[in-house]
């Protein structure tokens, strides 16, 4: 492992520090170099520190004078003329455990001495003119990146076919299709359309009645579809589906994950907040602002205030290693999670990359990272958990949550620890015991020396005792008293994961991301590249979250609207206009339709950031209405359908598959569960719960009838079905689900008791209908399961299949199960 770490006494950190170039090397110096130094460097060092090997580990090159002169990540390696002050000497001498070079073996003493002599000579080196490829940030190039340009409002282009477009957005799409000299596919049938739009907007299939109504609607396609869309947008199921999309990017979970996978018994409030926000069509700018700084925003009522506090739960939901012993590391990891989440979810930027070094692709420097990270360092994150050592500690700490109170509109306070909380009690008892013993000793007639020692010991113990008391004493101020958790946590207290303002402070840059290797303190600020968006300045007595929210939701911000519009587009078409939905940086994809993206983004902002309006426009567009018909001629021009000349077939998510099955079996409970998935004090560590044992089974109970969005998301313990169908890994932002196609999916559909049960129930429901003959029943079955009628061939096959076994329920169950197992059921047409 060759890893250069910064020395505590590290010399200047500047990458470009250069040395005074000494006089030209003398002949004898050159002879010395060629005889002793060059062979040694080639043999022992070039493998990792040369341009040729393609490696410059630790940022250090040793294959040219320019290479070593510009130093490495740990600073200058060689101080010409000063071997003792040269890092290189320390490393070849193995004087520092973290910096031993070469890493696998130590150089022979004569070799080490040669290097010493050479450096003391002034490090004469004839290898001049070498390339130094130190990567810095190219700010000019960075600035010109498309995603950093202001959002424009382009005029829709003219199209030859003027009858086809329904919405302005269609003109952008059609113009490109016409440019490619092809024509869009025909519209989808009404059968396909109602299934598509119902699954897209609610995550549930349409009922037979809904299909029938739409098919028979005498109005124009436009009008008939609009009716359906408005009905769907106003159903609660809409928020349950689109809220879940947001929960993917919010890396939502009901447990902390990692080593001590302790439950988040209050996370569900944030989940419900998200669902409700989508159902209320909360303007997206407001939605963002509340999640970043809800506690700092004005509120209209106690209820409103509570919602805004719950919204900040976003920042507290990160996956943390509760077993992390190093508090700095823990805090910096938490901040990194917040930076990464906000960066990718809201801006499509991978800030996390700049934690340890300047961003390799995007114009975000390490200083930018720590400048923005300072905002979160000045924020207190209350997740109800605390990192601790050892296995027996209590990680769940209700005192590290925010207590909500609907009767209050003032700022709530963090509840404070009760006097002598449990973890201290044992310590206090031990201390008291020892004091008592010593006091007894004192009473004895002891020599003076011993008496003195006892007095000292007692004083020391009493001091410890009073310090514990001070630390955990109940707050004295009246204001705080309202919120303090009582000796036994008040069972009526409504608790939430949230953030509050912390001690305002700037962060020191961490060299190579190492918590204990501090660089300069960086004042809190927004990334330099966004200077032209006139970001607000930050005050010295507030964290800056409010300003962060203002900046992000400013119409001048080039990313916020674009990223959200692109997410919506990706959910409705299977692929974003920018394919990498969480990465709008230089390493992300370019937009296929940049003008369309800007058109929708500017419109989105003009429409009060209304997500429902945006979705409505898109699903009523002609583009959304295209059939999936394959046109050979078009495919030769654009096989990948980048131009949107037809609809993409899209696999349903795990939740939609499960919810559709529940609905098919008539089992779906459409009401939201009254509370969270766990009891309010549930503090189990899921990494220790064995499957099958009480509590351990909860996450896998896919058979319960609630919608999937309400099932607990336990990190690393997702229900098997969710894992198999590519549920979003809840550890980090995930705007686009994977679509894998693996045998366990087939095994699930074929053999899982839940699927078998649902299929039987569906068969029973089909058979209960009073239908005249087998052919009609088959017809009904297809309408019931796939929202369409069977083809003749399908009817024939089904008839043959049904005949091959006598037991009607059994054979019908097998038929419905076959249909549910088919690809068509799990794909949006």
């Amino acid at each position, binding site marked *: 492992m060759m890893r250069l770490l910064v020395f505590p006494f590290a010399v200047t950190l500047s990458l470009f520090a250069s040395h005074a170039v000494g006089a030209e090397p003398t002949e004898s110096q050159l002879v010395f170099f060629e005889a002793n130094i060059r062979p040694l460097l080639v043999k022992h060092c070039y493998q990792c520190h040369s341009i040729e090997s393609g490696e410059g580990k630790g940022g250090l090159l040793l294959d040219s004078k320019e290479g070593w002169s510009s130093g490495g990540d740990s600073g200058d390696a060689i101080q010409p003329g000063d071997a003792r002050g040269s890092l290189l000497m320390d490393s070849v001498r193995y004087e520092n455990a973290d910096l031993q070079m070469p890493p*696998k073996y130590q150089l022979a003493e004569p070799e080490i001495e040669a290097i010493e002599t050479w450096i003391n000579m002034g490090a004469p080196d004839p290898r001049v003119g070498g390339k130094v490829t130190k990567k810095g940030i190219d700010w000019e190039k960075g600035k010109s990146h498309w995603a950093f340009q202001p959002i424009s409002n382009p005029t829709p282009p003219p199209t030859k076919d003027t009858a086809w477009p329904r919405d302005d957005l269609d003109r952008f799409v059609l113009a490109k299709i016409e440019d490619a000299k092809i024509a869009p596919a025909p519209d989808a049938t009404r059968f396909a359309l109602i299934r598509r739009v119902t699954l897209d907007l609610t995550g549930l299939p349409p009922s037979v009645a809904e299909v029938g109504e739409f098919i028979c609607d005498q109005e124009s396609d436009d009008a008939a579809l609009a009716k359906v869309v408005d009905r769907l947008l106003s159903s609660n199921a809409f928020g349950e589906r689109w809220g879940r999309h947001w929960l993917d990017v919010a890396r939502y979970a009901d447990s902390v994950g*990692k080593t001590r996978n302790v439950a988040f018994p209050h996370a569900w409030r944030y989940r419900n907040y998200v669902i409700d926000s989508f159902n209320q069509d909360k303007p997206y700018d407001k939605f963002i602002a509340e999640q970043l700084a809800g506690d700092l925003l004005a509120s209209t009522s106690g209820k409103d205030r509570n919602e805004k506090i719950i919204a900040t739960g976003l920042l507290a939901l990160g*996956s943390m290693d509760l077993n992390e012993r190093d508090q700095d590391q823990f805090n910096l990891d938490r901040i990194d999670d917040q930076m990464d989440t906000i960066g990718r979810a809201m801006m499509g930027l991978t800030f996390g990359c700049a934690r340890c070094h300047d961003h390799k692709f995007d114009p975000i420097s390490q200083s930018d990272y720590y400048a923005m990270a300072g905002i979160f360092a000045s924020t207190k994150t209350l997740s109800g958990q605390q990192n601790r050592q050892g296995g027996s500690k209590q990680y769940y700490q209700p005192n590290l949550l925010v207590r909500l109170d609907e009767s209050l509109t003032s700022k709530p306070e963090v509840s404070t620890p009760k006097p002598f909380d449990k973890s201290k009690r044992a310590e206090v008892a031990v201390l008291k015991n020892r004091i008592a013993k010593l006091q007894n000793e004192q009473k004895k007639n002891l020599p003076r020396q011993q008496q003195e020692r006892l007095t000292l010991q007692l004083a020391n113990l009493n001091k410890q005792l009073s310090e514990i008391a001070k630390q955990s004493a109940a707050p004295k101020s009246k204001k705080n008293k309202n919120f303090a958790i009582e000796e036994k946590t008040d069972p009526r207290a409504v608790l939430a994961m949230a953030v509050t303002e912390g001690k305002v402070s700037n962060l020191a840059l961490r060299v190579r991301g190492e918590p204990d290797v501090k660089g300069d303190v960086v004042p809190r600020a927004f990334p330099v590249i966004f200077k032209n968006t006139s970001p607000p300045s930050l005050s010295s007595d507030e964290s800056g979250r409010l300003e962060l929210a203002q900046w992000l939701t400013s119409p001048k911000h080039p990313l916020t609207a674009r990223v959200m519009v692109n997410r919506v587009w990706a959910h409705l078409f299977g692929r974003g206009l920018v394919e990498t939905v969480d990465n709008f940086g230089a390493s992300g994809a370019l937009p296929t339709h940049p003008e369309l993206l800007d058109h929708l983004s500017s419109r989105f902002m003009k429409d009060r950031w209304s997500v429902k309006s945006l979705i409505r426009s898109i699903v009523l567009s002609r583009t959304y209405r295209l059939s999936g018909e394959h046109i050979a001629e078009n495919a030769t021009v654009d096989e990948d359908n980048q131009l949107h000349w037809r609809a993409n077939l899209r696999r349903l998510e795990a939740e939609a598959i499960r919810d559709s099955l529940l609905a098919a079996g008539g089992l779906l409970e459409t009401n939201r569960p009254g509370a969270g998935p766990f009891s309010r004090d549930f503090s189990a560590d899921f990494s220790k719960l064995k*499957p*099958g044992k009480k509590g351990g089974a909860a996450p896998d109970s896919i058979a319960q009838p609630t919608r999937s969005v309400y099932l607990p998301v336990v990190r690393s*313990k997702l229900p098997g079905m969710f894992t198999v169908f590519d549920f979003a890994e809840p*550890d980090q932002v995930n705007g686009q689900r994977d679509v894998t196609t*693996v045998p366990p999916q087939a095994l699930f559909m074929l053999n899982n008791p839940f699927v078998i049960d649902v299929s039987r129930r569906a068969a029973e429901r089909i058979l209960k209908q009073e239908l005249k003959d087998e052919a009609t029943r088959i017809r009904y079955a297809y309408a019931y399961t796939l929202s369409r009628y069977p083809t003749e061939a399908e009817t024939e096959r089904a008839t043959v299949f049904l005949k091959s076994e006598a037991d009607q329920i059994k054979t019908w169950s097998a038929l419905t199960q076959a249909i549910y197992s088919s*690809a068509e059921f799990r794909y949006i047409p």
Partner: protein
Amino acid sequence: MPLTRRGMLQHSAAGFGWMAFAALNADAARASSEFESPLAPKAPHFKAKAKRVIFLFMQGGPSHLDTFDWKPALKASGGKSSSGPSGTKGGNGRLLAPQFKFSPQGQSGLPISELFPELSQHADDLCLLNGMHTSNAAHPQATIALHTGSINFVRPSLGSWVTYGLGSESQELPGFVTINPVNLGGAQNYGSSFLPASYQGTRVDLAAGGIADIRNRHLSDDRQRSQIDLIQEMNRDLLESHPGNQELDGVIQSFELAYRMQSSVPTVLDLKTESSETVRRYGIENEETKAFGTQCLMARRLAEAGVRFIQISKNGWDQHNNLKTALKKNCGGIDQPIAALLKDLKDRGMLDETLVLWGGEFGRSPQDQANSGDGRRHNNKGYSMWMAGGGVKGGLRYGATDETGGTSVEGKIGTHDLHATILHLLGFDHTKLTYRYAGRDFRLTDVYGEVASEILA
């Protein structure tokens, strides 16, 4: 068309229906040839001996000082006080001499403790790695690091990287199988994180009956086959209207593999077909060796069936106390089964192409835990693992800890180095086995990793 289809249906029942059908349909045939199963076998970067890995994971931190790292100086200085390596939990305290006898084994004379009488017979196949070290001395972190290379982030596991790199040799079974995985670290230990899900480990829980949903207790095999044929008819219809759609082709293939797995998985895991001699040799008849013997025999069968990465696990190696009794019991539980596994692999000519890896997440301190004379603390600064087969030198003791066994000082192999070496043995340049995700190329070894080239045969 319907008649031809019917003919095709019969082929389906024989298991190669789709290919037969595809040949009849030009568009679909094109689709089929374009679709490459993510699990199709792939060639590595360069030719290598090892084709698969069997990882015997010993969770808890087995004591290297009582098993595979002979420290005469520790023997001599048992009872003396010492300071542990800085930064470990080893701390200071009295040294605890090795609690078991070591003697040279095989022609190579590798020193192995008396706890492994059977395994010692294979000493000349073993490559002891005595210079192991890892970054963290806590079980969860070290376990996750060993499996994924990362402590801070959820990353693809070693097995999923190997399967991603090499695909699977079996068309009947998943490419990566983990039997009875330990709880610590959970699914991360065999997860695929951002790699496609096809590469994730398939979990076999022996207590829960194997692989999820592998059996249908509802339909007869014939009936299920005709049900699957019906499903596949629908799938093909859909593919026909979406020619070239890889996902749909994948669905069709997944049903065929799933159908085959229903018989292949229980068959490969069913040990009844093994001779009683074999069953005895693996120690399956004895209570103390039964559990691990079963896993070892299954591992061999999975290897024979073409599974790329097989992991079996045994926990309970955390001997803070009760070292002598517990270690004896643990080693006794695995010694005979591992010896049987090595022998079988060798007899079948498979040892050369199978890399067997043994070890835990870290080792233990030379210092006595609480001076009890019967326990050791965690130690991540120096410990041992061993490899056998798969192109590593046998009979080699590579790397070393310091005199008393606390810190690795020679032939040091850190977690990333271990991963780099394993990938190298399989034919990969670990710096080039990458996967692009979230805008950057990820690799198992992050930006680290040195191949321990001295151990390559």
